[in-house]
């Protein structure tokens, strides 16, 4: 009997986010007809979830380590601004469009990574807790983006990066089936899964989040560990910001305001615990898709924006409540 219960337990534990995702898709299929899972719709929803999903890969590591990152949205905006400003100025000094774009992407990701380092340094050296640190840098990075951009959106006049986030893959690469951005997100997901589950570094992220004292006792240099986690989160936000730039095709210092909350919601729906030690990359990815499918379904059903927000919020609470129930019923882990 306990064997059967075990299997049920493992299934529910591992598959809970998938079940939730399947339910929402089935629900809207019944409601809206099979076009909800048609090729176009799938392409659109997956493209729209790319930015949150990429940023959430870094945020999962942060949350598993018992941290939090509220500065993600600002970092995304900053990245788009840097990419467009750098592209413009390089092209003004005679660089070719392709080279200018590539260099600007590197610059954008580098600055986002620097933002992550700043978070990490404040948390480890100044010993300001992650919530307050990233609340502060949330303002700082947004301010920096506005300052660099002169509080305006910045067009590059080109669309060299646009193909990354087109809803359909480019003509030359039809075999991709979905947008290149989706493939990038998929690669990031696999990297994050391996990082968290299968590397020494990843196991220590869980250790730090679950019991910092134990990590320290076992020779983990907790400060370095945390710093690295926030650098990784910044790097992932940089990639996500690049995708956001590609999607909007402009630098927008006001973009992605509040996006960090979607990122956190994705991780939590995917089974991460804000008190640390629990969470997975695949869960977070499914959580991100869940929110996107839910929103898209509601849009197509004709539900007004305010009501959508209410429903998404309610589902967030529901997901955590289910998780708590599971924990009480079957015990931790």
């Amino acid at each position: 009997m306990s064997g059967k219960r075990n299997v049920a337990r493992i299934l529910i534990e591992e598959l809970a986010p998938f079940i939730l995702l399947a339910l929402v898709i089935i629900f809207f299929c019944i409601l809206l007809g099979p076009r909800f899972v048609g090729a176009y719709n799938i392409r659109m929803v997956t493209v729209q979830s790319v930015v949150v999903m990429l940023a959430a890969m870094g945020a999962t590591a942060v949350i598993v380590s018992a941290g939090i990152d509220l500065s993600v949205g600002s970092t995304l905006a900053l990245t788009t601004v840097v990419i467009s400003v750098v592209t413009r100025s390089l092209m003004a000094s005679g660089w070719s469009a392709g080279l200018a774009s590539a260099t600007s992407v590197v610059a954008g990701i580098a600055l986002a990574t620097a933002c992550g380092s700043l978070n990490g340094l404040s948390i480890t050296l100044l010993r300001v807790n992650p919530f307050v640190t990233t609340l502060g840098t949330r303002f700082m990075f947004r301010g920096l983006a506005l300052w660099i951009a002169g509080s305006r959106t910045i067009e590059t006049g080109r669309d060299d990066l646009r193909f990354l986030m087109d809803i359909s893959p480019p003509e030359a690469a039809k075999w991709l089936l979905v947008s290149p951005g989706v493939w990038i997100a998929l690669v990031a997901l696999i990297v994050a899964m391996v990082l968290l589950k299968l590397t020494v570094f990843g196991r220590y992220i869980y250790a730090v989040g679950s019991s910092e004292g134990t990590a320290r006792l076992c020779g983990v240099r907790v400060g370095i560990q945390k710093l690295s986690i926030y650098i990784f989160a910044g790097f992932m936000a940089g990639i996500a910001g690049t995708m956001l730039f590609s999607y909007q095709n402009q630098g927008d210092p006001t973009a992605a305001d509040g996006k960090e909350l979607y990122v956190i919601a994705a991780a939590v729906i995917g089974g991460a615990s804000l008190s640390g030690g629990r969470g997975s990359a695949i869960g977070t990815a499914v959580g991100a898709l869940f929110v996107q499918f839910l929103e898209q379904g509601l849009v197509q059903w004709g539900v007004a924006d305010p009501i959508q927000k209410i429903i998404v919020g309610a589902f967030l609470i529901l997901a955590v409540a289910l998780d708590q129930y599971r924990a009480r019923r079957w015990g931790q882990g």
Partner: protein
Amino acid sequence: MPESVPRLRMEGVAKRFGGIVAVDGVGFEVLAGEVHALVGENGAGKSTLMKILSGAILPDAGSLFLDGEPYRPKDPREGRARGIAMIYQELNLAHDLTVEANICLGIEPARRGFLRHGEIRRLARDALAELGDTGIEPDETVGRLGPGPRQLVEIARALVSRARIVVLDEPTSSLSAEDTRLLFAVVRRLAASGVSVVYISHFLEEVQEIADRFTVLRDGRVVGSGRIAETPLDRIIALMVGREVQDLFPHIPHEIGEPILDVNDLWGKKLPRGAGVTLHRGEVLGIFGLVGAGRTEFLRAIYGLDPVRSGRIRVAGIEDAGRLPHERIRQGVGLLSEDRKLEGLAVDQSIADNLTYGRMEPFSRFGVISPPKRRRIVEEWMARLSIRGRGPHQAVSALSGGNQQKVALARILYWEADVVLLDEPTRGVDVGSKVEIYRLIGDLAVRGKAVVFVSSYLPELLGVCDRIATMHRGELSVPLETRATTPEAIMALATGTREDAA
């Protein structure tokens, strides 16, 4: 003043959780105005029995009588109303409120919804006065009090709600000697005024000092009870563990080799104060002392978890190989923390993770883990220490205390540490696992490892260690050969009475 009708009588009380029998046909009597010690190993059923008394758990069978009247509380609220006061290790106080506000919390006298501050103050002061001279100010904020006075505030609260039975659960485990004395004085006053006290403790020496009678629980049954004054301590221990004391400590002959750890004049931030010792291969060194004497700090300073002000530490003759934990691990030093839940184990992670923290090289390449290799290693260690669990992937929190401790120990063995520092390794562990841990320590010595065994329980040190040093106010005594010493001599060193005599 024993009366004919006992304050509390329990008859045939039974409770199971799923398939596990927690208490089974327990009869338990507490007289009015007595201090009754309830002793037993962890898992013996003490807390279940007390939860039944408080109303937190409904028994499956049996009946309870309070002063002769049937008593069957539905919930803790009813228990409190009938005069049962539970005082747990984790106290239920509002840290930001004053002492008097806490004493009257939940029972504030009020008129038409407005608090009557004068009345609150009077009640609180009366209750504090009943405790005797405790030096607690009623308008002090509770958060500023130490653990001892906080406990007294809880007792005062029990008095205000007219408690007939006060249950103290391991009350001294975090108290200094001075606070313990103060607590004992209060307990005696309570008993003298007719309140019954149920005193739960692991420290039998304390039980001997404070209690009138005792009841021993083992595996959910009462295995003995009687008057403390008429019962030797050995007898109580034998009842608790279900066997004679000498069988507990398997003696494994081992040889003492060359020095491996040399600590000289080590000063921590506060503790230790100039402690030094030389430890040899194949040696088990006990460190005895009261809680707060600096034993834990001594081990942590050696291991690099706490900053060191001055002093020299040499492992295997080398001094300059770094003193941080990750460097100590490389040098072959391992520490078992006294605080298993906070520092010893990441309890919501798996056995496999917890066992291999600190050393993942054997199953990883370029930082990437090979799960099958890891699984093999972990299964091997689980078998070697007979860790009973569902498998490497089970969360540590689902294991019993004894098996949890074995995971923490297995980790140090897996590190292949030559110097094994054990801080209260048998705390919160069932007797079976205790014996296994003693045997493990013996095995380590046989294999030429050096062990430092810190404990507050002298009999186990006498049973297992080659030499025993005592720590008193941060200073470490010269170790005594266990064979050539007596418990009294060690106790005198630990409490500093010998110094006073000299």
